């Protein structure tokens, strides 16, 4: 399995700075950068740093967080050029020299300072048919889904996504092609393609095809590398490529090689 960024565990030693050392923090604001200085502390996270700056130095700094324990994904931003959860990023692990550079999540419109508008991210989620489609007629009985079946395993591999936007920010294809649906939306679509109860598969496969769809993924694997939940959108998207290819070939064959009645 592709692991997420190696983050030091609490028992692992990191390069903690000497007592009294200071940290220079460059934060992207208003088209430029603003520099702050905070004291370094043991086991300090980037969220600790941003919070200290906002509460004690500049209350006008805008940023997001909620659970602060790596469950909600609200605190995602670019830390030294990479999208990360600030609550789960130790300063000692990522500081370059004595400095940190903080920017809002890439590929999304900036509301203010470090807070981005997640609307385009969720719009693409919907555009990829990222919602369960029960169909017009309710099923007669409960669906039997064996946990070890290939379809359920495929769903399990991607179902833990919490829509934090880190993969979307990491994706170069999103940066190059603003229409591209992105790894999270496509990963969710794949979990639904493998949902044996879903009745909207044809429309979903069409929705994830095309220049904005799965065929535009070039397997950079930045999404899989950066996902804090250790999901692998690259392989979900590969599954969509296979599924859409097979469906297209079937349609092509049916249209051109239909046996006369």
């Amino acid at each position, binding site marked *: 399995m592709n692991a997420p960024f190696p983050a030091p565990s609490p028992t692992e030693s990191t390069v903690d700075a000497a007592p009294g050392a200071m940290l220079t923090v460059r934060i992207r604001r208003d088209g430029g950068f603003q520099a702050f200085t905070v004291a370094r502390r043991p086991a300090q996270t980037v969220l600790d740093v941003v919070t200290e700056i906002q509460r004690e130095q500049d209350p006008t700094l805008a940023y997001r967080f909620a659970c602060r324990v790596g469950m909600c994904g609200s605190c995602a931003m670019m830390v030294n050029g990479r999208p990360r959860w600030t609550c789960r990023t130790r300063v000692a692990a990522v500081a370059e020299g004595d400095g940190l550079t903080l920017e809002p999540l890439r590929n999304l419109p900036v509301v203010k300072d470090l807070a981005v508008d997640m609307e385009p991210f969720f719009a693409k989620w919907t555009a990829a048919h990222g919602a369960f489609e029960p169909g017009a007629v309710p099923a007669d009985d409960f669906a039997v889904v064996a946990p070890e079946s290939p379809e359920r395993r495929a769903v399990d591999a991607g179902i833990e996504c919490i829509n934090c936007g880190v993969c979307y920010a990491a994706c170069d*294809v999103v940066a*190059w*092609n603003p229409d591209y649906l992105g790894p999270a939306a496509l990963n969710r679509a794949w979990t639904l393609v493998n949902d044996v109860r879903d009745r909207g598969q044809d429309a979903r496969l069409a929705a994830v*095809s*095309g*220049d904005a769809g799965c*065929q*535009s993924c*070039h397997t950079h694997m930045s999404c899989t590398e950066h996902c804090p939940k250790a999901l692998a959108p690259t392989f979900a998207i590969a599954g969509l*490529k296979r599924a*859409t*290819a097979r*469906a*297209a*070939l079937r349609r*092509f064959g049916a249209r051109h090689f239909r046996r006369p009645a």
Partner: protein
Amino acid sequence: MSPLLYVAQRGTAVILAVAVAVHLGTILYAVRGGLTAGEILGRTQGNLAFLVFYGIFVIAAAIHAPIGLRSILREWTRWRGRSLDGAMLGVAVILAILGLRAALAVYVA
């Protein structure tokens, strides 16, 4: 790209993988000690197998390359839409014509 374009690109990729392996192997074998026209043509003149091989090779490349170019142009320049698609079709046709001409050239020479 559409699913069919994707299938075309990946399908021709497999064909090209085999053809390129054969082609590279031939080149590496042929280039030892220098390469003359006589040596190239001696191998391909009147050789129907080579003609068919190169014919398939050319058609596969003429399909594969423009689809790749389309992605590059769409993502790294502002060009997109029907004019880009048309231009890439033109590239495919030109490559096919030039390539089949070359395959014939070394067959009849």
